């Protein structure tokens, strides 16, 4: 394994697999933890040059608090700041603040209800106005304003009595103790009160088309359908920026994205990165640095646990054992992703490495079904009490790798007397009510479970999060286990990381046992950057490669 000068790792697929087996995935991102290697070049004194990031979706929502998708995050992180940032290791560090509130420093009261935030005094908006506690208050209140088309409101809805103590200090009270809020605040970007208050409509206006932030880059211009140009903010209070211009270029086709990376038209391949089928070729390209970066999302097959055939744990165990997972990873996905047994990202502090390992074993699968009384009928399909072991599997149509995996699983299932029908739907249909209201039978889906790095998964596994049963959340499997519910409630109230770790290790253990979904693999992105781009680090705790463009520079 060789380390090149910007701290990235060139490694073969074999080496990567060895490393995963040996020491967990932390090894893959470990070089980033060290920050800049001592022998790296130093950034230029004044911002120079331009870096072009290629994106396969177009950033279009520039008010950072409005409903948006992943690609918009890269722009937000570059133009705005939050109270805190999250490092690649998952540590929450000050951004617009001077400290991260905790029980120890008194920033959060013992009961977790009273918060005190201390702000930096040297921050200015791009128009020169000083940033202050009033802006923070305005931002947090805007999110819960019923007329504002806000993005997610979880956590924010619990905040009460925001009080500005001084321009650099404010306090608030939480309706109930909610530990994940600290992590949520790393993705809550502060907006300028003095500009937005003067704007007639909070949902549209000049700010939304050319926003003013505090971040390392200022708004340049946007060519709709083509690209967005940001320019350096020389007065930025933090590190950088070292480049004059940051360009987000929209390239709608994944093949073309790769082609333009090869031809040198783009410097950094952003969201949705290179496709696994290009990895083998891309990693040998001259003057390009191509790396595998673990993602927070997990690819899995979700059960709709409301269906009679899936209520028997033996069935779920048998179906899991009958998936040849390594073949899906190696043969279909070019060995890029990694095995996992849990929803928790492998690089997380809360990851449980001691879960039972999946083994592909058709005999065991048959045995499990035989023992549970599922016997093959006249048509060869197993049945019990009049319920046939037959179901549909759905995912986004046109997702080739998933479609291949479906066909592959369909074959091994047929060998154990289980019928899996494939019924794929266009993206907007698949992830509409069909998914949200649990109308699917089984679904092949890639899910990011965590917000920031916080291990809270109430939204995914708590009984009250089953929409199909009148709840609110994204418990699409309709999974319900009182033990898990209790643990999740306790976890959300607990601030001590050690204690929280115990709780979420247990949650993972129970969910691995109950199998509301069958983990296929932990997703891995294939990142590509041009040689000479320095200061680039990946951060699986954010949704974007451009979470820290302020630190990028040309060698």
């Amino acid at each position: 394994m060789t380390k090149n000068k910007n701290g990235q790792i060139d490694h073969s697929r074999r080496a990567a697999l060895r490393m995963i087996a040996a020491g967990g995935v932390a090894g893959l991102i470990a070089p980033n933890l060290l920050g800049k290697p001592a022998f790296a070049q130093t950034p230029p004194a004044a911002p120079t040059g331009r870096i072009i990031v290629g994106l396969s979706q177009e950033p279009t929502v520039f008010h950072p608090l409005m409903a948006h998708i992943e690609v918009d995050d890269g722009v937000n992180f570059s133009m705005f700041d939050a109270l805190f940032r999250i490092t690649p290791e998952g540590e929450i560090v000050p951004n617009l603040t001077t400290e991260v509130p905790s029980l120890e420093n008194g920033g959060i009261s013992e009961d977790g209800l009273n918060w005190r935030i201390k702000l930096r005094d040297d921050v200015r908006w791009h128009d020169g106005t000083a940033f202050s506690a009033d802006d923070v208050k305005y931002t947090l209140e805007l999110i819960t304003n019923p007329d504002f088309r806000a993005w997610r409101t979880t956590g924010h809805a619990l905040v009460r009595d925001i009080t500005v103590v001084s321009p650099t200090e404010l306090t608030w009270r939480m309706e109930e103790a909610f530990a994940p809020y600290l992590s949520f605040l790393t993705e809550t970007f502060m907006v300028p009160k003095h500009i937005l208050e003067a704007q007639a409509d909070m949902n549209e206006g000049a700010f939304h088309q050319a926003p003013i932030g505090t971040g390392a880059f200022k708004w340049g211009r946007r060519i709709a359908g083509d690209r967005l140009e940001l320019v350096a903010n020389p007065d930025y209070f933090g590190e950088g920026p070292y480049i004059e211009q940051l360009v987000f270029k929209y390239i709608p086709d994944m093949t073309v994205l790769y082609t333009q990376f090869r031809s040198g038209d783009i410097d950094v391949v952003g969201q949705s990165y290179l496709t696994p089928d290009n990895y083998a070729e891309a990693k040998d390209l001259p003057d390009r640095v191509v790396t595998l970066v673990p993602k927070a999302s997990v690819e899995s097959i979700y059960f709709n646990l409301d269906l009679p055939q899936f209520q028997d744990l033996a069935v779920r165990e048998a179906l899991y054992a009958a998936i040849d997972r390594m073949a899906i990873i190696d043969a279909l996905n070019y060995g890029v992703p990694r095995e996992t047994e849990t929803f928790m990202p492998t690089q997380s502090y809360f990851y449980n490495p001691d879960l039972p390992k999946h083994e592909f074993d058709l005999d065991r699968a048959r045995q499990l079904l035989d023992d549970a009384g599922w016997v093959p009928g006249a048509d060869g399909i197993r049945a019990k009490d009049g319920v046939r072991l037959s179901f549909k599997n759905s995912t986004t149509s046109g997702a080739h790798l998933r479609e291949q995996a479906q066909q592959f699983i369909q074959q091994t299932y047929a060998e154990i007397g289980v019928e899996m029908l494939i019924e794929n739907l266009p993206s907007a249909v698949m992830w509409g009510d069909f998914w949200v209201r649990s109308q699917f039978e089984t679904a092949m889906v890639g899910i990011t479970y965590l917000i920031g790095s916080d291990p809270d998964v109430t939204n995914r596994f708590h009984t009250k999060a089953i929409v199909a049963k009148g709840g609110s959340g994204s418990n699409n499997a309709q999974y319900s286990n009182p033990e898990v519910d209790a643990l999740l409630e306790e976890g959300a109230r607990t601030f001590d990381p050690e204690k929280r770790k115990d709780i979420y290790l247990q949650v993972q253990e129970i969910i691995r046992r109950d199998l509301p979904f069958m983990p296929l693999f932990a997703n891995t992105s294939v990142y590509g950057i041009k040689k000479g781009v320095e200061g680039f680090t990946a951060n699986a705790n954010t949704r974007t490669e451009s979470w820290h463009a302020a630190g990028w520079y040309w060698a």
Partner: protein
Amino acid sequence: MTAFLLKRVLQSLVLLVIVSIIGFAVLNLIPGGPMAQYALDPGMTQDDMDRLAEQLGLNRPIWVQYFDWAWRMLQGDWGTSFRDGNPVTTVIGRHVFATFLLMGSSTVIAVAIGTWIGIRGATHRYSIFDYAATIGAMVALSIPTFWFGLIGIYVFSLKLGWLPAGSMYTIGDGSVLNYLHHLIMPSTVLALVHIAIWSRFMRASTLDAISQEFVKTARAKGLSERRVIMKHVVGNALLPMITLAGVQLPSILTGALVTETVFTWPGMGRLFLDSLGYSDYPVVMGLLMFSAILTILGNLIADIVVALVDPRIRLA
């Protein structure tokens, strides 16, 4: 002429209403909708999505939504994009130039070359040239544009390095030459299909004209073959092509879906695809109405031009 125009305008209005009702109904019948893109967002709850749907007015009955949209449309308000919060007319306006540039240049190439091939194919019927042109047209029509595009990028950008792999111009360089350099490959690729269509129509139309009595008369008068073709055949053969051009006018602005995607060209075809993908109803409806109006205008202009050029036709 005034009566004719009045009648056409009335017909067009009825047509626009029908198009808008069908478009609106079909769009809203597609399950999913604008909220689907947030379904996998870790922190987005059903409450958040319901709130957004309500704020966007999506939970009202479809006919209420339609009349609301139509009433605003009548007042000249095309609505606001869900995706980027801009007025629909602004969103469309921003993409018109790119498409116009691409389709305009490829149409010029296609008409010039297609007309020539068509005439020559007709006058040299069953010659090697004619067979080659026929086979060439079939090939160009049956191979998908994206394939031509990707092969072009592979050969001319990656292997030879002569032409850029896409985009309208190099970032930081907006010179005319730079535009032209970027225009060569996409417009040629697009033109291939149009040359094929245009040359087939032109060939048929020329053959039609050649078999007319007045051509025999012209030849009998002892006119040179060149003069017969140029003066008597081509002029008449071009008449039906005016109508064809009128029908094709809207496709000039909306027809480059695939090419725009392959060459990352920021035009209206891609805007349409993206807006559909995001279920950005106001923009999709806007594009639909825009192309419906263009179709109507294209046909109207073609009818008027044909009447002006051909003294036998009178508008009534």
